[in-house]
Protein backbone atom coordinates (compact mmCIF):
# COMPACT_ATOMS: atom_id res chain seq x y z
CA UNK A 1 0.00 0.00 0.00
CA UNK A 2 1.29 3.34 -0.89
CA UNK A 3 1.91 5.57 2.11
CA UNK A 4 -0.49 8.31 1.03
CA UNK A 5 -3.34 5.87 0.59
CA UNK A 6 -2.54 4.35 4.00
CA UNK A 7 -2.81 7.76 5.62
CA UNK A 8 -6.18 8.48 3.92
CA UNK A 9 -7.64 5.14 4.98
CA UNK A 10 -6.36 5.46 8.53
CA UNK A 11 -7.80 8.93 8.83
CA UNK A 12 -11.17 7.81 7.47
CA UNK A 13 -11.31 4.92 9.95
CA UNK A 14 -10.31 7.16 12.80
CA UNK A 15 -13.02 9.67 11.90
CA UNK A 16 -15.66 6.98 11.58
CA UNK A 17 -14.67 5.68 15.01
CA UNK A 18 -14.79 9.16 16.51
CA UNK A 19 -18.14 10.29 15.12
CA UNK A 20 -20.46 8.31 17.47
CA UNK A 21 -18.75 9.91 20.51
CA UNK A 22 -19.49 13.40 19.25
CA UNK A 23 -23.25 12.87 18.77
CA UNK A 24 -24.40 10.75 15.91
CA UNK A 25 -26.71 7.98 17.37
CA UNK A 26 -29.31 5.57 16.13
CA UNK A 27 -33.04 5.82 16.83
CA UNK A 28 -32.71 3.27 19.63
CA UNK A 29 -30.06 5.36 21.29
CA UNK A 30 -32.38 8.37 21.16
CA UNK A 31 -35.05 6.35 22.93
CA UNK A 32 -32.54 5.38 25.61
CA UNK A 33 -31.60 9.01 26.06
CA UNK A 34 -35.25 9.99 26.34
CA UNK A 35 -35.61 7.42 29.11
CA UNK A 36 -32.59 8.56 31.07
CA UNK A 37 -33.79 10.12 34.30
CA UNK A 38 -30.96 12.44 35.21
CA UNK A 39 -33.20 14.62 37.36
CA UNK A 40 -34.07 11.72 39.61
CA UNK A 41 -30.82 9.81 39.60
CA UNK A 42 -29.78 11.09 43.00
CA UNK A 43 -33.11 10.17 44.51
CA UNK A 44 -34.32 6.98 42.85
CA UNK A 45 -32.68 3.69 42.25
CA UNK A 46 -33.54 1.75 39.11
CA UNK A 47 -36.19 -0.36 40.82
CA UNK A 48 -38.08 2.68 41.95
CA UNK A 49 -37.98 4.24 38.50
CA UNK A 50 -39.37 1.06 36.98
CA UNK A 51 -42.06 0.84 39.64
CA UNK A 52 -43.11 4.41 38.98
CA UNK A 53 -43.13 3.67 35.27
CA UNK A 54 -45.47 0.73 35.71
CA UNK A 55 -47.78 2.71 37.97
CA UNK A 56 -47.85 5.57 35.48
CA UNK A 57 -48.98 3.23 32.74
CA UNK A 58 -51.83 2.04 34.95
CA UNK A 59 -52.99 5.65 35.09
CA UNK A 60 -52.26 6.47 31.44
CA UNK A 61 -52.85 3.15 29.73
CA UNK A 62 -53.13 4.81 26.31
CA UNK A 63 -49.44 5.69 26.55
CA UNK A 64 -48.23 2.19 27.25
CA UNK A 65 -46.02 1.78 24.19
CA UNK A 66 -42.42 2.70 23.51
CA UNK A 67 -43.34 4.46 20.27
CA UNK A 68 -46.09 6.52 21.90
CA UNK A 69 -44.05 7.58 24.89
CA UNK A 70 -40.94 8.40 22.89
CA UNK A 71 -43.07 10.46 20.49
CA UNK A 72 -44.69 12.39 23.31
CA UNK A 73 -41.41 13.09 25.05
CA UNK A 74 -39.63 14.03 21.80
CA UNK A 75 -42.43 16.41 20.93
CA UNK A 76 -42.28 17.92 24.40
CA UNK A 77 -38.61 18.73 24.06
CA UNK A 78 -38.90 19.65 20.39
CA UNK A 79 -36.59 16.96 19.09
CA UNK A 80 -37.40 15.16 15.89
CA UNK A 81 -36.94 11.41 16.00
CA UNK A 82 -36.21 11.47 12.30
CA UNK A 83 -32.94 13.25 12.82
CA UNK A 84 -30.02 10.96 12.37
CA UNK A 85 -27.71 13.22 14.26
CA UNK A 86 -28.36 14.61 17.70
CA UNK A 87 -26.37 15.71 20.67
CA UNK A 88 -26.96 13.59 23.77
CA UNK A 89 -25.94 16.31 26.20
CA UNK A 90 -28.25 18.82 24.53
CA UNK A 91 -31.18 16.44 24.64
CA UNK A 92 -30.66 15.72 28.31
CA UNK A 93 -30.50 19.43 28.93
CA UNK A 94 -33.77 19.95 27.04
CA UNK A 95 -35.39 17.22 29.10
CA UNK A 96 -34.21 18.84 32.30
CA UNK A 97 -35.62 22.19 31.20
CA UNK A 98 -38.91 20.58 30.20
CA UNK A 99 -39.24 18.98 33.61
CA UNK A 100 -38.82 22.26 35.40
CA UNK A 101 -41.27 23.89 33.00
CA UNK A 102 -43.76 21.13 33.71
CA UNK A 103 -43.62 22.03 37.39
CA UNK A 104 -43.94 25.72 36.64
CA UNK A 105 -46.98 25.11 34.45
CA UNK A 106 -48.57 22.69 36.86
CA UNK A 107 -48.21 19.81 34.42
CA UNK A 108 -47.60 17.40 37.25
CA UNK A 109 -48.89 14.03 38.24
CA UNK A 110 -48.86 12.01 41.44
CA UNK A 111 -47.68 8.46 40.93
CA UNK A 112 -47.54 6.16 43.92
CA UNK A 113 -47.39 9.28 46.09
CA UNK A 114 -44.52 10.87 44.17
CA UNK A 115 -45.32 14.34 42.85
CA UNK A 116 -43.61 14.31 39.46
CA UNK A 117 -43.39 16.24 36.27
CA UNK A 118 -45.45 14.64 33.53
CA UNK A 119 -42.31 14.32 31.41
CA UNK A 120 -40.36 12.43 34.04
CA UNK A 121 -43.31 10.16 34.79
CA UNK A 122 -43.37 9.32 31.10
CA UNK A 123 -39.64 8.75 31.18
CA UNK A 124 -40.10 6.22 33.96
CA UNK A 125 -42.76 4.49 31.89
CA UNK A 126 -40.51 4.44 28.82
CA UNK A 127 -37.67 3.04 30.88
CA UNK A 128 -39.82 0.27 32.27
CA UNK A 129 -40.91 -0.71 28.74
CA UNK A 130 -37.35 -0.69 27.45
CA UNK A 131 -36.17 -2.83 30.35
CA UNK A 132 -38.91 -5.33 29.58
Amino acid at each position, binding site marked *: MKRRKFIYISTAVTISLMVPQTGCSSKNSLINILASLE*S*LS*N*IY*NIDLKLEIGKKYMEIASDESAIETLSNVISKRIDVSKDNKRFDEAKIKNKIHTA*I*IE*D*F*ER*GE*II*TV*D*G*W*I*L*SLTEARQCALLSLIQN
Partner: protein
Amino acid sequence: MHIDARELDNNTLIEGDICIIGAGAAGISMALDWDKTNQKVILLEGGGFEYDAKLQELYEGKNIGQKYLPLSAIRLHKFGGTTGLWGGFCSPFDDIDFVERKWVEHSGWPISLKDLVPFYNQAMDILDLHSTDYSLDYWQKREPSYENLPFNNHIIHEKIWQFSPPTRFGKKYKDDVVNSRNIELYTYANVTNIAAIESMKEIDKLEIKNHAGKKHFVKAKYYILACGAIQNARILLTSNKQNIKGLGNENDLVGRYFMEHVEVKSSEIWLNSDYDMSLYLLRKGTTKARAELAISNEAQEKYKILNGTVSLRPLDIARHAVTINENWKDGNPYLKKEDKSLMERIKKKYLKMKEGRIDNIQRAFQLHTRIEQAPNPNSRILLDNKKDALGMNLVNLNWQLSDIDKDSIRTIYNIIGQQVGVSDIGRIKLMEFLREKDDKSWPEFTSGGFHHMGTTRMNNDPKKGVVDSTCKLHGIDNLFVAGSSCFTTSGASNPTFTLIALSLRLSNYLKSKFN
Protein backbone atom coordinates in the same frame (compact mmCIF):
# COMPACT_ATOMS: atom_id res chain seq x y z
CA MET B 1 -48.44 34.39 100.24
CA HIS B 2 -49.48 30.76 100.02
CA ILE B 3 -52.40 29.13 101.80
CA ASP B 4 -53.39 25.47 101.60
CA ALA B 5 -57.19 25.59 101.36
CA ARG B 6 -57.44 22.16 103.01
CA GLU B 7 -56.24 23.73 106.22
CA LEU B 8 -58.70 26.61 106.34
CA ASP B 9 -61.75 26.47 108.55
CA ASN B 10 -64.74 25.28 106.58
CA ASN B 11 -66.79 28.01 104.87
CA THR B 12 -63.97 30.54 104.94
CA LEU B 13 -64.71 33.66 102.93
CA ILE B 14 -61.73 34.84 100.88
CA GLU B 15 -61.84 38.38 99.51
CA GLY B 16 -59.73 40.33 97.09
CA ASP B 17 -59.75 42.81 94.23
CA ILE B 18 -59.24 40.34 91.45
CA CYS B 19 -59.56 36.59 91.56
CA ILE B 20 -57.70 34.49 89.01
CA ILE B 21 -59.00 30.94 88.69
CA GLY B 22 -56.20 28.65 87.61
CA ALA B 23 -52.44 28.87 88.13
CA GLY B 24 -51.13 27.76 84.76
CA ALA B 25 -49.41 29.80 82.07
CA ALA B 26 -52.22 32.37 81.80
CA GLY B 27 -53.03 32.61 85.49
CA ILE B 28 -49.48 32.94 86.78
CA SER B 29 -48.53 35.43 84.03
CA MET B 30 -51.49 37.59 84.98
CA ALA B 31 -50.97 37.30 88.72
CA LEU B 32 -47.33 38.35 88.46
CA ASP B 33 -48.38 41.26 86.26
CA TRP B 34 -50.18 42.57 89.36
CA ASP B 35 -47.27 41.96 91.70
CA LYS B 36 -46.31 45.07 93.68
CA THR B 37 -49.54 46.85 92.79
CA ASN B 38 -52.08 48.09 95.31
CA GLN B 39 -54.59 45.44 94.42
CA LYS B 40 -55.07 42.22 96.31
CA VAL B 41 -54.89 39.29 93.90
CA ILE B 42 -56.45 35.96 94.81
CA LEU B 43 -54.91 33.15 92.75
CA LEU B 44 -56.77 29.84 92.98
CA GLU B 45 -55.14 26.55 92.06
CA GLY B 46 -57.09 23.29 92.31
CA GLY B 47 -53.97 21.17 92.77
CA GLY B 48 -50.87 21.49 94.88
CA PHE B 49 -47.25 22.00 93.97
CA GLU B 50 -46.65 18.37 93.06
CA TYR B 51 -48.39 15.92 90.78
CA ASP B 52 -51.23 14.09 92.52
CA ALA B 53 -53.07 11.26 90.77
CA LYS B 54 -56.21 11.85 92.83
CA LEU B 55 -56.40 15.44 91.61
CA GLN B 56 -55.61 14.37 88.09
CA GLU B 57 -58.73 12.19 88.19
CA LEU B 58 -60.80 15.37 88.36
CA TYR B 59 -59.74 15.92 84.73
CA GLU B 60 -61.03 12.63 83.45
CA GLY B 61 -63.47 12.57 80.59
CA LYS B 62 -64.40 10.63 77.49
CA ASN B 63 -63.44 11.23 73.90
CA ILE B 64 -66.59 10.72 71.85
CA GLY B 65 -65.48 12.15 68.50
CA GLN B 66 -62.26 12.05 66.48
CA LYS B 67 -59.66 9.84 68.14
CA TYR B 68 -57.83 11.90 70.72
CA LEU B 69 -55.54 11.60 73.68
CA PRO B 70 -56.87 10.77 77.18
CA LEU B 71 -58.23 14.00 78.69
CA SER B 72 -56.50 13.50 82.00
CA ALA B 73 -53.15 12.84 80.31
CA ILE B 74 -52.98 16.07 78.38
CA ARG B 75 -53.42 18.55 81.22
CA LEU B 76 -51.70 18.87 84.56
CA HIS B 77 -53.76 19.71 87.62
CA LYS B 78 -51.15 21.42 89.73
CA PHE B 79 -49.46 24.77 90.23
CA GLY B 80 -47.85 25.66 86.93
CA GLY B 81 -50.50 23.76 85.00
CA THR B 82 -49.69 22.11 81.72
CA THR B 83 -46.44 24.05 81.35
CA GLY B 84 -45.19 20.99 83.19
CA LEU B 85 -45.62 19.05 79.94
CA TRP B 86 -45.00 21.87 77.51
CA GLY B 87 -42.54 21.52 74.64
CA GLY B 88 -41.46 25.16 74.56
CA PHE B 89 -42.35 25.96 70.98
CA CYS B 90 -43.03 29.68 70.50
CA SER B 91 -44.09 31.65 67.48
CA PRO B 92 -46.56 34.52 67.22
CA PHE B 93 -49.77 34.15 65.31
CA ASP B 94 -49.82 35.52 61.77
CA ASP B 95 -51.82 38.55 60.72
CA ILE B 96 -54.00 36.36 58.51
CA ASP B 97 -55.12 34.43 61.59
CA PHE B 98 -57.07 37.43 62.85
CA VAL B 99 -58.82 38.54 59.69
CA GLU B 100 -62.12 37.29 58.42
CA ARG B 101 -61.36 34.93 55.55
CA LYS B 102 -64.26 34.30 53.18
CA TRP B 103 -63.19 30.70 52.68
CA VAL B 104 -63.02 29.92 56.41
CA GLU B 105 -66.44 29.99 58.02
CA HIS B 106 -66.59 31.59 61.49
CA SER B 107 -63.18 33.19 61.05
CA GLY B 108 -62.32 36.76 62.05
CA TRP B 109 -61.30 38.02 65.47
CA PRO B 110 -62.51 41.39 66.81
CA ILE B 111 -58.83 42.27 67.42
CA SER B 112 -55.76 42.23 65.19
CA LEU B 113 -52.21 40.99 65.51
CA LYS B 114 -51.14 44.58 66.17
CA ASP B 115 -53.19 44.57 69.39
CA LEU B 116 -51.06 41.75 70.75
CA VAL B 117 -47.58 42.91 69.74
CA PRO B 118 -46.75 44.79 72.98
CA PHE B 119 -47.86 41.78 74.97
CA TYR B 120 -45.84 39.31 72.89
CA ASN B 121 -42.82 41.40 73.84
CA GLN B 122 -43.79 41.10 77.50
CA ALA B 123 -44.40 37.36 77.15
CA MET B 124 -40.95 36.91 75.65
CA ASP B 125 -39.29 37.52 79.02
CA ILE B 126 -41.73 35.30 80.88
CA LEU B 127 -40.92 32.42 78.53
CA ASP B 128 -37.14 32.97 78.49
CA LEU B 129 -37.04 33.59 74.76
CA HIS B 130 -34.17 35.29 72.98
CA SER B 131 -35.57 37.92 70.72
CA THR B 132 -38.68 39.77 69.68
CA ASP B 133 -37.52 39.28 66.11
CA TYR B 134 -38.97 36.29 64.30
CA SER B 135 -37.72 37.23 60.86
CA LEU B 136 -35.63 34.80 58.85
CA ASP B 137 -33.26 37.64 58.06
CA TYR B 138 -32.46 38.24 61.73
CA TRP B 139 -31.81 34.57 62.47
CA GLN B 140 -29.70 34.05 59.36
CA LYS B 141 -27.47 36.94 60.40
CA ARG B 142 -27.22 35.44 63.85
CA GLU B 143 -26.54 31.88 62.62
CA PRO B 144 -24.62 31.93 59.33
CA SER B 145 -25.21 28.20 58.79
CA TYR B 146 -28.95 28.84 58.50
CA GLU B 147 -29.41 28.47 54.77
CA ASN B 148 -32.93 28.36 53.44
CA LEU B 149 -34.10 26.21 50.57
CA PRO B 150 -34.50 28.19 47.33
CA PHE B 151 -38.29 28.47 47.25
CA ASN B 152 -40.26 31.31 45.76
CA ASN B 153 -41.11 33.10 48.96
CA HIS B 154 -44.25 34.59 47.51
CA ILE B 155 -45.55 31.03 47.78
CA ILE B 156 -43.53 29.25 50.48
CA HIS B 157 -41.60 31.05 53.16
CA GLU B 158 -39.92 30.16 56.41
CA LYS B 159 -41.82 30.81 59.64
CA ILE B 160 -39.52 30.96 62.63
CA TRP B 161 -40.08 29.28 65.97
CA GLN B 162 -38.05 30.08 69.04
CA PHE B 163 -37.65 27.65 71.90
CA SER B 164 -38.30 28.34 75.51
CA PRO B 165 -36.07 26.07 77.70
CA PRO B 166 -39.14 25.14 78.28
CA THR B 167 -40.10 27.36 81.16
CA ARG B 168 -41.85 25.29 83.81
CA PHE B 169 -44.02 27.88 85.51
CA GLY B 170 -44.54 25.75 88.59
CA LYS B 171 -40.84 25.71 89.30
CA LYS B 172 -39.69 29.06 87.98
CA TYR B 173 -42.42 31.29 89.38
CA LYS B 174 -43.35 29.53 92.61
CA ASP B 175 -41.16 31.74 94.81
CA ASP B 176 -42.24 34.93 93.03
CA VAL B 177 -45.89 34.11 93.65
CA VAL B 178 -45.50 32.80 97.17
CA ASN B 179 -43.30 35.71 98.26
CA SER B 180 -45.47 38.40 96.70
CA ARG B 181 -47.07 40.72 99.23
CA ASN B 182 -50.25 41.29 97.28
CA ILE B 183 -50.80 37.86 95.70
CA GLU B 184 -52.56 35.22 97.81
CA LEU B 185 -52.16 31.79 96.28
CA TYR B 186 -54.65 29.17 97.45
CA THR B 187 -53.79 25.59 96.55
CA TYR B 188 -56.35 22.76 96.71
CA ALA B 189 -58.95 25.36 95.78
CA ASN B 190 -61.06 23.86 92.99
CA VAL B 191 -63.81 26.15 91.73
CA THR B 192 -66.96 24.05 91.63
CA ASN B 193 -69.55 26.77 91.10
CA ILE B 194 -69.71 30.41 90.09
CA ALA B 195 -72.75 32.15 91.55
CA ALA B 196 -74.17 35.30 90.02
CA ILE B 197 -76.40 37.91 91.61
CA GLU B 198 -80.10 37.60 90.97
CA SER B 199 -80.08 39.62 87.75
CA MET B 200 -77.24 37.39 86.43
CA LYS B 201 -75.38 40.52 85.31
CA GLU B 202 -72.64 40.20 87.86
CA ILE B 203 -70.81 37.44 89.70
CA ASP B 204 -71.46 37.34 93.42
CA LYS B 205 -69.04 34.70 94.60
CA LEU B 206 -67.19 31.49 93.80
CA GLU B 207 -67.51 28.19 95.60
CA ILE B 208 -64.29 26.20 96.04
CA LYS B 209 -63.83 22.64 97.29
CA ASN B 210 -61.11 20.07 97.90
CA HIS B 211 -60.69 16.39 98.77
CA ALA B 212 -60.40 17.27 102.47
CA GLY B 213 -64.13 17.97 102.36
CA LYS B 214 -63.70 21.71 102.83
CA LYS B 215 -65.87 24.27 101.08
CA HIS B 216 -64.99 27.96 100.91
CA PHE B 217 -66.14 31.09 99.08
CA VAL B 218 -64.35 33.80 97.19
CA LYS B 219 -65.53 37.33 96.51
CA ALA B 220 -63.75 39.82 94.29
CA LYS B 221 -64.46 42.80 92.11
CA TYR B 222 -63.33 40.94 89.02
CA TYR B 223 -63.02 37.25 88.29
CA ILE B 224 -60.86 35.71 85.61
CA LEU B 225 -61.23 32.13 84.45
CA ALA B 226 -57.80 30.84 83.44
CA CYS B 227 -58.05 27.06 83.60
CA GLY B 228 -57.58 26.16 79.95
CA ALA B 229 -60.18 25.68 77.25
CA ILE B 230 -61.63 22.41 78.53
CA GLN B 231 -61.92 23.41 82.18
CA ASN B 232 -63.06 26.99 81.46
CA ALA B 233 -66.00 25.65 79.49
CA ARG B 234 -66.68 23.01 82.12
CA ILE B 235 -66.86 25.53 84.95
CA LEU B 236 -69.21 27.80 82.99
CA LEU B 237 -71.49 24.92 82.01
CA THR B 238 -71.63 23.38 85.49
CA SER B 239 -72.41 26.75 87.10
CA ASN B 240 -76.01 26.08 86.22
CA LYS B 241 -77.92 26.34 89.48
CA GLN B 242 -79.42 29.68 88.46
CA ASN B 243 -79.67 29.09 84.73
CA ILE B 244 -79.76 25.57 83.40
CA LYS B 245 -77.65 26.59 80.41
CA GLY B 246 -74.81 27.68 82.66
CA LEU B 247 -73.05 31.04 82.68
CA GLY B 248 -72.56 33.14 79.55
CA ASN B 249 -74.33 30.49 77.53
CA GLU B 250 -77.55 32.15 76.42
CA ASN B 251 -76.70 31.38 72.80
CA ASP B 252 -75.40 27.84 73.36
CA LEU B 253 -71.83 28.70 72.47
CA VAL B 254 -69.91 27.76 75.61
CA GLY B 255 -67.90 24.64 74.91
CA ARG B 256 -68.46 24.80 71.17
CA TYR B 257 -65.80 25.48 68.55
CA PHE B 258 -63.25 23.36 70.39
CA MET B 259 -60.15 23.56 68.24
CA GLU B 260 -56.89 21.67 68.20
CA HIS B 261 -53.99 21.80 65.82
CA VAL B 262 -54.13 18.84 63.52
CA GLU B 263 -50.67 17.33 63.78
CA VAL B 264 -49.89 14.56 61.37
CA LYS B 265 -46.90 13.17 59.48
CA SER B 266 -47.76 13.79 55.89
CA SER B 267 -45.05 13.25 53.32
CA GLU B 268 -41.36 12.91 52.58
CA ILE B 269 -38.96 15.22 50.81
CA TRP B 270 -36.05 13.62 48.99
CA LEU B 271 -33.36 16.14 48.07
CA ASN B 272 -31.19 15.61 45.03
CA SER B 273 -28.04 16.99 46.59
CA ASP B 274 -26.61 18.02 49.93
CA TYR B 275 -28.09 21.04 51.59
CA ASP B 276 -27.27 22.31 55.04
CA MET B 277 -30.61 21.81 56.76
CA SER B 278 -29.63 23.28 60.12
CA LEU B 279 -32.28 25.99 59.77
CA TYR B 280 -35.03 23.39 59.79
CA LEU B 281 -33.83 20.90 62.37
CA LEU B 282 -34.34 20.85 66.09
CA ARG B 283 -31.74 19.75 68.61
CA LYS B 284 -33.46 19.91 71.98
CA GLY B 285 -31.61 22.02 74.46
CA THR B 286 -29.39 23.57 71.79
CA THR B 287 -31.52 25.03 69.02
CA LYS B 288 -32.66 28.57 69.74
CA ALA B 289 -34.73 28.95 66.62
CA ARG B 290 -35.74 26.89 63.67
CA ALA B 291 -37.91 27.33 60.60
CA GLU B 292 -40.98 25.55 59.40
CA LEU B 293 -42.26 25.92 55.87
CA ALA B 294 -45.32 28.14 55.65
CA ILE B 295 -47.67 28.99 52.82
CA SER B 296 -48.04 32.67 51.93
CA ASN B 297 -51.23 34.59 52.60
CA GLU B 298 -51.70 35.01 48.85
CA ALA B 299 -51.46 31.29 48.25
CA GLN B 300 -53.81 30.55 51.14
CA GLU B 301 -56.36 32.86 49.60
CA LYS B 302 -55.79 31.56 46.06
CA TYR B 303 -56.22 27.93 47.04
CA LYS B 304 -58.69 28.62 49.84
CA ILE B 305 -56.78 26.74 52.47
CA LEU B 306 -56.15 27.00 56.18
CA ASN B 307 -52.98 28.28 57.78
CA GLY B 308 -50.50 25.55 58.59
CA THR B 309 -46.81 24.83 58.62
CA VAL B 310 -44.54 21.95 57.78
CA SER B 311 -41.61 20.83 59.88
CA LEU B 312 -38.80 18.54 58.80
CA ARG B 313 -37.26 15.58 60.56
CA PRO B 314 -34.54 13.29 59.15
CA LEU B 315 -36.37 10.37 57.61
CA ASP B 316 -34.10 7.65 58.93
CA ILE B 317 -34.95 8.87 62.43
CA ALA B 318 -38.60 9.76 61.84
CA ARG B 319 -39.33 6.23 60.66
CA HIS B 320 -38.41 4.94 64.12
CA ALA B 321 -40.05 7.66 66.18
CA VAL B 322 -43.02 6.91 68.42
CA THR B 323 -46.12 8.88 67.46
CA ILE B 324 -47.86 11.10 69.97
CA ASN B 325 -50.87 8.76 70.04
CA GLU B 326 -48.64 5.87 71.00
CA ASN B 327 -46.86 7.97 73.58
CA TRP B 328 -49.94 8.81 75.62
CA LYS B 329 -52.25 5.84 75.66
CA ASP B 330 -53.10 5.93 79.35
CA GLY B 331 -54.54 8.63 81.54
CA ASN B 332 -51.31 9.29 83.37
CA PRO B 333 -49.49 12.24 81.77
CA TYR B 334 -46.16 10.94 82.98
CA LEU B 335 -46.66 7.42 81.70
CA LYS B 336 -45.17 7.96 78.29
CA LYS B 337 -42.88 5.80 76.23
CA GLU B 338 -39.46 7.29 75.97
CA ASP B 339 -37.33 6.44 73.04
CA LYS B 340 -34.06 7.38 74.70
CA SER B 341 -32.03 6.18 71.78
CA LEU B 342 -33.90 8.55 69.48
CA MET B 343 -32.14 11.63 70.82
CA GLU B 344 -28.80 9.89 70.42
CA ARG B 345 -29.59 9.06 66.81
CA ILE B 346 -30.67 12.64 66.15
CA LYS B 347 -27.39 13.88 67.60
CA LYS B 348 -25.35 11.47 65.46
CA LYS B 349 -27.41 12.32 62.40
CA TYR B 350 -26.75 16.02 62.88
CA LEU B 351 -23.03 15.41 63.12
CA LYS B 352 -23.13 13.18 60.06
CA MET B 353 -24.85 15.94 58.11
CA LYS B 354 -21.96 18.26 58.84
CA GLU B 355 -19.49 15.64 57.62
CA GLY B 356 -21.27 14.89 54.37
CA ARG B 357 -23.79 12.37 53.16
CA ILE B 358 -23.32 8.86 51.92
CA ASP B 359 -26.81 7.49 51.34
CA ASN B 360 -29.85 8.80 49.56
CA ILE B 361 -31.94 8.46 52.68
CA GLN B 362 -29.67 10.91 54.44
CA ARG B 363 -30.99 13.55 52.08
CA ALA B 364 -34.55 12.60 52.94
CA PHE B 365 -36.82 14.16 55.54
CA GLN B 366 -40.23 13.42 56.86
CA LEU B 367 -42.59 16.34 56.57
CA HIS B 368 -44.92 16.86 59.48
CA THR B 369 -47.95 19.15 59.40
CA ARG B 370 -49.27 21.40 62.09
CA ILE B 371 -52.36 23.17 60.85
CA GLU B 372 -55.24 25.15 62.32
CA GLN B 373 -58.61 23.51 62.15
CA ALA B 374 -61.56 25.41 60.73
CA PRO B 375 -63.85 26.60 63.55
CA ASN B 376 -66.53 23.94 63.81
CA PRO B 377 -69.50 24.48 66.16
CA ASN B 378 -70.03 20.72 66.39
CA SER B 379 -66.57 20.23 67.84
CA ARG B 380 -67.30 20.72 71.48
CA ILE B 381 -67.06 20.06 75.18
CA LEU B 382 -70.17 18.54 76.72
CA LEU B 383 -71.08 17.73 80.28
CA ASP B 384 -71.34 14.09 81.26
CA ASN B 385 -73.91 12.94 83.82
CA LYS B 386 -71.16 11.33 85.84
CA LYS B 387 -69.64 13.55 88.51
CA ASP B 388 -66.16 13.75 89.94
CA ALA B 389 -65.14 13.39 93.57
CA LEU B 390 -66.01 17.06 94.24
CA GLY B 391 -69.49 16.77 92.73
CA MET B 392 -68.77 18.48 89.42
CA ASN B 393 -69.99 16.95 86.14
CA LEU B 394 -67.18 15.40 84.15
CA VAL B 395 -66.79 16.45 80.55
CA ASN B 396 -66.75 14.65 77.23
CA LEU B 397 -64.83 15.91 74.26
CA ASN B 398 -66.41 15.55 70.86
CA TRP B 399 -63.50 16.64 68.67
CA GLN B 400 -64.74 17.11 65.13
CA LEU B 401 -62.82 17.97 62.00
CA SER B 402 -64.07 19.37 58.70
CA ASP B 403 -63.38 18.62 55.03
CA ILE B 404 -61.39 21.83 54.62
CA ASP B 405 -58.95 20.61 57.29
CA LYS B 406 -57.80 17.64 55.24
CA ASP B 407 -58.21 19.36 51.88
CA SER B 408 -55.89 22.08 53.12
CA ILE B 409 -53.20 19.60 54.11
CA ARG B 410 -53.41 17.90 50.72
CA THR B 411 -53.19 21.23 48.91
CA ILE B 412 -50.24 22.38 51.01
CA TYR B 413 -48.26 19.34 49.92
CA ASN B 414 -49.27 19.74 46.32
CA ILE B 415 -47.99 23.30 46.51
CA ILE B 416 -44.76 22.16 48.15
CA GLY B 417 -44.40 19.31 45.67
CA GLN B 418 -44.75 21.73 42.79
CA GLN B 419 -42.32 24.25 44.26
CA VAL B 420 -39.76 21.57 45.10
CA GLY B 421 -39.85 20.66 41.42
CA VAL B 422 -39.66 24.25 40.23
CA SER B 423 -36.67 24.83 42.50
CA ASP B 424 -35.13 21.61 41.20
CA ILE B 425 -34.07 20.50 44.65
CA GLY B 426 -35.78 17.14 44.87
CA ARG B 427 -39.15 15.45 45.00
CA ILE B 428 -42.05 15.01 47.42
CA LYS B 429 -43.69 11.70 48.22
CA LEU B 430 -47.16 11.95 49.76
CA MET B 431 -48.30 9.56 52.44
CA GLU B 432 -51.16 7.35 51.39
CA PHE B 433 -53.93 9.23 53.19
CA LEU B 434 -53.31 12.32 51.05
CA ARG B 435 -53.23 10.72 47.62
CA GLU B 436 -56.92 10.47 46.75
CA LYS B 437 -58.83 13.74 46.48
CA ASP B 438 -62.10 12.17 47.59
CA ASP B 439 -60.65 10.39 50.59
CA LYS B 440 -62.07 12.17 53.63
CA SER B 441 -60.68 9.75 56.21
CA TRP B 442 -57.97 10.47 58.75
CA PRO B 443 -55.20 7.97 59.54
CA GLU B 444 -54.84 6.45 63.01
CA PHE B 445 -51.79 8.54 63.76
CA THR B 446 -53.65 11.85 63.32
CA SER B 447 -53.31 13.75 66.53
CA GLY B 448 -53.54 17.11 68.22
CA GLY B 449 -50.73 18.98 69.90
CA PHE B 450 -52.22 19.33 73.41
CA HIS B 451 -53.53 22.67 72.15
CA HIS B 452 -57.03 23.35 73.41
CA MET B 453 -58.68 26.44 72.02
CA GLY B 454 -61.93 28.17 71.17
CA THR B 455 -64.47 27.01 73.76
CA THR B 456 -65.26 30.57 74.90
CA ARG B 457 -64.50 32.19 71.57
CA MET B 458 -64.10 35.90 71.10
CA ASN B 459 -66.62 37.90 69.10
CA ASN B 460 -68.27 41.22 69.86
CA ASP B 461 -71.60 39.77 68.79
CA PRO B 462 -73.01 37.63 71.66
CA LYS B 463 -74.69 35.43 69.06
CA LYS B 464 -71.26 34.53 67.68
CA GLY B 465 -68.99 34.60 70.71
CA VAL B 466 -68.85 33.97 74.44
CA VAL B 467 -66.47 36.84 75.25
CA ASP B 468 -66.05 40.26 73.71
CA SER B 469 -62.83 41.86 72.50
CA THR B 470 -61.80 42.59 76.11
CA CYS B 471 -62.32 38.91 77.01
CA LYS B 472 -65.32 39.80 79.16
CA LEU B 473 -68.17 37.32 79.18
CA HIS B 474 -71.14 38.70 77.31
CA GLY B 475 -73.88 39.75 79.67
CA ILE B 476 -71.79 39.55 82.86
CA ASP B 477 -69.94 42.67 83.91
CA ASN B 478 -67.19 41.26 86.12
CA LEU B 479 -66.33 37.85 84.71
CA PHE B 480 -63.49 37.49 82.20
CA VAL B 481 -61.75 34.59 80.53
CA ALA B 482 -58.01 34.36 79.96
CA GLY B 483 -56.18 32.08 77.61
CA SER B 484 -56.71 30.06 74.50
CA SER B 485 -60.37 29.31 75.12
CA CYS B 486 -60.92 32.85 73.78
CA PHE B 487 -59.26 32.13 70.44
CA THR B 488 -61.60 32.69 67.51
CA THR B 489 -59.34 30.72 65.17
CA SER B 490 -56.41 28.52 66.06
CA GLY B 491 -53.60 29.77 63.83
CA ALA B 492 -50.61 27.77 62.67
CA SER B 493 -48.55 28.49 65.78
CA ASN B 494 -48.51 26.69 69.09
CA PRO B 495 -50.84 28.60 71.42
CA THR B 496 -48.82 29.18 74.60
CA PHE B 497 -47.02 32.31 73.46
CA THR B 498 -50.25 33.86 72.15
CA LEU B 499 -52.42 32.87 75.10
CA ILE B 500 -49.96 34.54 77.46
CA ALA B 501 -49.91 37.67 75.29
CA LEU B 502 -53.72 37.72 75.23
CA SER B 503 -53.87 37.22 79.00
CA LEU B 504 -51.43 40.07 79.59
CA ARG B 505 -53.59 42.25 77.36
CA LEU B 506 -56.57 41.39 79.56
CA SER B 507 -54.51 42.14 82.63
CA ASN B 508 -53.60 45.54 81.19
CA TYR B 509 -57.26 46.25 80.49
CA LEU B 510 -58.29 45.37 84.04
CA LYS B 511 -55.56 47.58 85.47
CA SER B 512 -57.17 50.49 83.65
CA LYS B 513 -60.37 49.73 85.55
CA PHE B 514 -58.58 50.32 88.82
CA ASN B 515 -56.75 53.36 87.52
